[in-house]
C-alpha cells in the first residue's frame, strides 16, 4: 500500500501509551469525570424542575388576578417585564454613555479613567444583598420612594451598570479605527461619527451585554425584597410596590403549601433563562462570524 496514511494514531497505540503512563490515564479519566459531573448537574437540575413543574403549569397560574387560591404568576411576570424595562431604561443610557466617553473621548492615560474602571470593577463584585441594603437605605428611606418599582429599578440599574458598560466598551474597542478615520475624513464630527458609524457596528456586542443584564434582573431576588417589595399584583404606577417572578417563587417556596406552583414558577423562570441564553449565543455567534 503506497499511499496509506501513516500518522493516524490508532486506538491500540493510544492504549499502549496509557499502559506506559498510568498517571496520564488517571488524569484523563479525571477531566472526563469532572466534565460529566458538570453536565450531569445541569441536566439533573433542568430536568428535575421540568418534570415536576410542567404538569402544574395550569391555566389558573396565568389568570390576570392573584388570589391565594390560584397563586397566579401572571402579575409577577408582568411586573418582571416592567422591572426589566425600567432598569434597562436607566442603566443602558448611562452604561453606553460611560463607555463612549472612555473609548471615544477620554485620553488613555487619564486618571479619571482609572477611577471609573476601579469603581466599575467594584460594582461588579458587590453581592446583590448589599445592593438590596443600599437600595433600601437610599431609595426607599432617604429619597422616600417607599417600596416601589422605581426603587427596585434604580437598585437593579446600578447592579447591571458594569455589565452593560463593559460589554459596550469591548464592542467599541473592537470597532476598527479605519471606520472612524473614514468618517472623519468625510468631514463628519466626532459625535456624528460615534452615533452613525461606531455605535451601529458595535451593536451586537452592546446587545449581548443588555441580554446578560436582562438575565440578572429576571433572576434577582435579594436586591428586590426590601426595595421593590412583595405586593402580588401588577403595580399601577412606578411608585407602587410589586413582586417579580423570582420573589414570587421565593415566597411560594417559603410557604410550604404551594410547592407545585413553585415548581411551575421555576419552569417559567427557566424558560426565561433559556430564551435569554439562546438569544445571547445567537448574538455571540453573529459577532464571531463578523470577525472571520
Amino acid at each position, binding site marked *: 500500500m503506497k499511499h496509506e496514511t501513516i500518522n493516524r494514531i490508532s486506538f491500540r497505540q493510544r492504549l499502549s501509551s496509557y499502559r506506559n503512563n498510568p498517571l496520564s490515564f488517571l488524569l484523563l479519566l479525571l477531566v472526563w469525570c469532572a466534565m460529566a459531573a458538570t453536565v450531569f448537574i445541569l441536566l439533573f437540575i433542568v430536568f428535575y424542575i421540568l418534570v415536576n413543574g410542567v404538569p402544574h403549569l395550569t391555566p389558573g397560574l396565568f389568570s390576570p388576578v392573584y388570589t391565594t387560591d390560584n397563586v397566579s404568576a401572571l402579575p409577577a411576570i408582568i411586573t418582571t417585564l416592567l422591572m426589566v424595562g425600567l432598569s434597562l431604561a436607566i442603566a443602558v443610557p448611562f452604561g453606553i454613555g460611560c463607555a463612549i466617553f472612555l473609548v471615544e473621548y477620554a485620553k488613555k492615560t487619564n486618571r479619571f479613567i482609572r477611577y471609573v474602571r476601579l469603581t466599575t470593577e467594584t460594582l461588579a*463584585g458587590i453581592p446583590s444583598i448589599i445592593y*438590596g*441594603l443600599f437600595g433600601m437605605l437610599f431609595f426607599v428611606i432617604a429619597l422616600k420612594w417607599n417600596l416601589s418599582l422605581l426603587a427596585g429599578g434604580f437598585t437593579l440599574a446600578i447592579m447591571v451598570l458594569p455589565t452593560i458598560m463593559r460589554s459596550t466598551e469591548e464592542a467599541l474597542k473592537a470597532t476598527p479605527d479605519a471606520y472612524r478615520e473614514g468618517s472623519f475624513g468625510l468631514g463628519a464630527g466626532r459625535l456624528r461619527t460615534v452615533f452613525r458609524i461606531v455605535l451601529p457596528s458595535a451593536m451586537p456586542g452592546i446587545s449581548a451585554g443588555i441580554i446578560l443584564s436582562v438575565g440578572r434582573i429576571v433572576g434577582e431576588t435579594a436586591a428586590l425584597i426590601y426595595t421593590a417589595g412583595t405586593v402580588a399584583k401588577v403595580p399601577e404606577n412606578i411608585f407602587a410596590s410589586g413582586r417579580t417572578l423570582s420573589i414570587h417563587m421565593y415566597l411560594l417556596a417559603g410557604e410550604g403549601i404551594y410547592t407545585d406552583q413553585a415548581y411551575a414558577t421555576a419552569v417559567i423562570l427557566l424558560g426565561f433563562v433559556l430564551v435569554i441564553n439562546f438569544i445571547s*449565543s445567537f448574538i455571540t455567534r453573529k459577532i464571531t462570524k463578523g470577525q472571520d
Partner: protein
Amino acid sequence: MEAVFFITACASILAVLLICFFIFVNGLPAIAKIGVFNFLGGTKWAPLNTVPSFGILPMIVGSLFVTAGAIVIGVPIGLLTAIFMAQFCPKKMYHPLKTIIDLLAGIPSIVYGFFGIAVLVPFVRDTFGGNGNSILTASLLLGIMILPTIIGISEAALRAVPSSYYEGALALGATHERAVFFTVFPAAGSGVLASVVLGIGRAVGETMAVIMVAGNQARMPVGILKGVRTLTANIILEMGYAADLHREALIACGAVLFVFVLLLNFCFSAITEYRRRRE
C-alpha cells in the same frame, strides 16, 4: 455633548461612593454602640431578648465555613472541567458544553435554592444523617453555583498560555495529559487563582440559595451536618421586622460583608494587575 458622556461616566463612581456612604453611615454607629469586640467577637445573637446581644461571630464563621465548603467542592470540579474545555474537548462537543455551562451561570439563585430544598436536603439527610439543612448542604449547593465562574475564567487563563510550553513538554516525551497538567496548568496559575477568588466572592455574597438549605440557626457551627447561618442570611431574614438598634446591627452586618467583599475585589484586581504586568 462630551459633557453629557462625562456625566454618565461619573455614574459608577457616584454609585460606589453612595453605596459606601449609606452602608457605613448607617452601620458603623451600631458597631460603636454595641462595641467592636462585642459585635465582631460576640458569639451570641439574640436581638429580641430583654437584654439583647448582638454578636455576629457565629454568622462570620458560618459564612466562612460555607464558603470554604463550596471551594472544596466547586474548585476541583471547576478546574478539571476548565482543563477539559481548554485542552481535551473534542471539537464537536465544545459548543453544546459551552451552552450548558452558560446555562448553569444563568439559572437564578432562587431556582438553585429550590432545587436545594427539593433534592439536596433530602439527599444529605438520607445519606449522611441530620435533618438535611446543614453546612454540607449549603456547601454542595454553593459549590455547584460557583462552577460557571471558575470554569469560565480558568478556561480563558488556560487558553492564554503560549502553545510553546505545551509543545516543549511534548517534545520531551511528555504525554498530552502530563504536558497539560504539569506545564500548561501551572503557567496559568494566576488566572486560575483569580477565578477562585471570584468564586469565593460569589459564594460569600450568595443569599437566597443559602437561606433555603443552611438551616439558619444563629449559633456557632457545631458540625457540618448541623445548620448554620451566614451573614447574608442574617440580613435578609430579620430585616423585615427589625427596628432600632437591631436594624442598625443588621446594616452593620452588611457593612462587615461589604468590607469582606471589597477585600476580595482588591485581591482580584491585584492578581489581574500582576498578570498584565508580567505580559
